[in-house]
C-alpha cells in the first residue's frame, strides 16, 4: 500500500496530491465510505431512485417511449380507482391471495417442521424433498403446473378419470371461478418448504430441558406444545408470517406463467396489472399509479415489522 513518488508519477499525480489522497485514506471514516460506496451507489440508482420516480410518474401522462411527458395531476388515480374495471378485481385477488398465503403455506410448513423434528427415520431426505420446489424457477413451476392442470392430458383430470370421479373434472385454469385457487395450489407446493425450513430452525431454539421438565411434571403432548413449544416459537412465527406476506406480493412469475391474468382477468393481480398497463398497454402513468397503491400497501405492512427487527438487532 506504500506508494513511492516514482509509482505515483506513473499515474500522473504530483507527490503532493498523492500525499493528500493517502492522508485522506488514513481516516477510518473515509475508509468506511469507500467500502460502502459501490453498494450504496448501485442501490440508489437502480432501486431507490425508481421507487421515488414511480411516484412522480404516477402524476404524468407518458407512453414510455417519447420525450413528451405531461403533468396530469390526479387523473391517473381517478381513472385507476374510479373507471378501471380491472383494478378492483386485481385488488380483490391480491387480498385473497395474500390472505391465503399467510394461512396455508405457514400452517403446512409448521406441520411438516413439527413432524420432521421428531425421532423418525428418513428426516434428511424428507426435508430435502419438501424444500426442493423452493429452489426451482417459479416460471418453471408455473409451466409444470400448467401442464398438470391441462384439461385433456394433465395429471389432475387423468387421476380423476382413473378414480372414476368424472364429475369433479374441471378446466382448472380456464374456469373463472376456480382459476385463482388452482394457481394458488401450485403456489403452496412451491413455497411451503420455505416456511418449513424457518420453523425447523426456530424449533432448534426450543429448550429441550424445558420440554423434559414439563413432561416430568405430567404435561401431555398437546400441553407441551401449547405451553412450551408455541411460546418459544413466537419470534419465528412473526418472521414466517411477515415473509409469507411479502413474498405473496412478489408472486408475479407463477401467475404470469400459469394464466397471464386470465381467463377474463379473473387471476389478475396488482403487480401484474401495473406491469401490463405500463409495459404492454404503454401507459406508464396509470401503471405507476397502480404501483404506488401497491407500494403504500407494502409500506404499511413493512414499517411496523422494521421497527420490531431493529429492536431485536439492538438487543
Amino acid at each position: 500500500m506504500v506508494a513511492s513518488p516514482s509509482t505515483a508519477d506513473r499515474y500522473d499525480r504530483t507527490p503532493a496530491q498523492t500525499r493528500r489522497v493517502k492522508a485522506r485514506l488514513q481516516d477510518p471514516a473515509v475508509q468506511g465510505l469507500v467500502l460502502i460506496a459501490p453498494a450504496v451507489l448501485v442501490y440508489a440508482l437502480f432501486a431507490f431512485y425508481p421507487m421515488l420516480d414511480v411516484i412522480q410518474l404516477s402524476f404524468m401522462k407518458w407512453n414510455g417511449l417519447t420525450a413528451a411527458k405531461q403533468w396530469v395531476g390526479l387523473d391517473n388515480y381517478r381513472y385507476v380507482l374510479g373507471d378501471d374495471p380491472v383494478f378492483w378485481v386485481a385488488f380483490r385477488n391480491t387480498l385473497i391471495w395474500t390472505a391465503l398465503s399467510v394461512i396455508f403455506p405457514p400452517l403446512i410448513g409448521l406441520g411438516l417442521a413439527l413432524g420432521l423434528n421428531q425421532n423418525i427415520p428418513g428426516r434428511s431426505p424428507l426435508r430435502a424433498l419438501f424444500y426442493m420446489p423452493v429452489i426451482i424457477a417459479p416460471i418453471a413451476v408455473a409451466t409444470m403446473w400448467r401442464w398438470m392442470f391441462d384439461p385433456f392430458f394433465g395429471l389432475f383430470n387423468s387421476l380423476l378419470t382413473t378414480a372414476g370421479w368424472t364429475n369433479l373434472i374441471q378446466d382448472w385454469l380456464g374456469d373463472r371461478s376456480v382459476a385463482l385457487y388452482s394457481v394458488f395450489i401450485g403456489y403452496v407446493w412451491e413455497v411451503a418448504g420455505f416456511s418449513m425450513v424457518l420453523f425447523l430452525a426456530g424449533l432448534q431454539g426450543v429448550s429441550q430441558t424445558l420440554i423434559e421438565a414439563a413432561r416430568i411434571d405430567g404435561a401431555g403432548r398437546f400441553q407441551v406444545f401449547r405451553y412450551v413449544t408455541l411460546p418459544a416459537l413466537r419470534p419465528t412465527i412473526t418472521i414466517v408470517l411477515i415473509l409469507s406476506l411479502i413474498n405473496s406480493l412478489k408472486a408475479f412469475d407463477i401467475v404470469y406463467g400459469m394464466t397471464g391474468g386470465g381467463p377474463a382477468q379473473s387471476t389478475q393481480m396488482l403487480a401484474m396489472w401495473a406491469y401490463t398497463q405500463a409495459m404492454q398497454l404503454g401507459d406508464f402513468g396509470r401503471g405507476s399509479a397502480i404501483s404506488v397503491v401497491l407500494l403504500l400497501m407494502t409500506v404499511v405492512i413493512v414499517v411496523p415489522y422494521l421497527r420490531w427487527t431493529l429492536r431485536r438487532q439492538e438487543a
Partner: protein
Amino acid sequence: MSGVANPFRQAGAERIDPLLVALWITLIIVAVIWIAPFVFIIFTSLKSNATVMGTGAFSPPTSIAWENFANAWRRGDFGTTVVNSTIITVIKVPLGLMISAMAAYSLSRIQFWGHKVAFLAIVFGTMIPFQVMLAPIFKQVNSFGLINTYVGIILPYLAFGVPYQVFILHGFFKEVPKELSEAALIDGASHFTVFRRIFLPVSLPVLAALLILDFVATWNEFAMALVILQDPDRWTLPLGLMSFQSQFARDYGQLNAAIVMTVLPAAIVYLIFQRYFVSGLTSGAVKE
C-alpha cells in the same frame, strides 16, 4: 445422515410410540404428493406425443424418447439462453457478494456520518419487492441506454440483491470479536486490510451460503429479465422456457423436456450444497 438411534421412540423411552409411527406414515403420504409433480414431468419428458395422449399419467414411458431433449434444445434455442444465463449469473453473483460484504463490514465496524440511515435503508430495501415497480426500473435502465444488454440486467440485479446480503452479513460481522480487528488496526493496518485479511476469511461459510442462494435466485429470475431483455438473443433460460410454452404447448414431450433442462442446473446445485441453503436462509432471519 438420517440414521436416528432407536427411531419411533420418545427421548429416553424404550417402547415404540404409536403416535410417532402414525405421524411418520402421514409424512410419507405428504412426501408422495410432493414428489408426484416431479415424477409426472420426468415421465412426460420421455414420452412421445402419441404415448402422452394414449397412456395414463403415471405409466412409465415404454420406449424412451430421448429425442424430446434434443428437439426442445434446438427449437427453444437453449444454446443461446443457457449462455446468457451463465454469463449474467457468473458476473453478478460474485460481484454482488463482494460489494455487499464491503458495505456490511463498513456498517458494522466503522462509525461514519449517516451510517444509521444507511442501515435503515438497507433493512427497508429487504422488504420492498421489485416486482412492484418494473416500469420505473425499465425507464431507469433505458435512460442509460442499457436495454437488451448484460450490464443493463446486472445493475438492477445487484441493486436488489444488496439489501438482503448486507443485512445477513452485518449480523454476522457484528458477532466477530472486536479484539481481532482492533489489534490489527492499532498496528497500523487499514480497514481495507482488516476486511480482506480477517473478515473475509472468517466469514467464508456465510459467504458460501449466500453465494449459493444468490446463484439460484439469479438463475431463476424472470420478471426483471422480461422487462429488460426483450431481444430473443439476450433471453435467459426462464424467458426461453416461457416462450417455448407459448409456442409449443401442444408438444407435451418436448415442453416437459424443456422444463427438465431449465430446472436441472439449480436442482443439482441444491442437492450438492443442501446444507448451505438452510444456513444461508436462517442465519439472519432466525436469531435466538
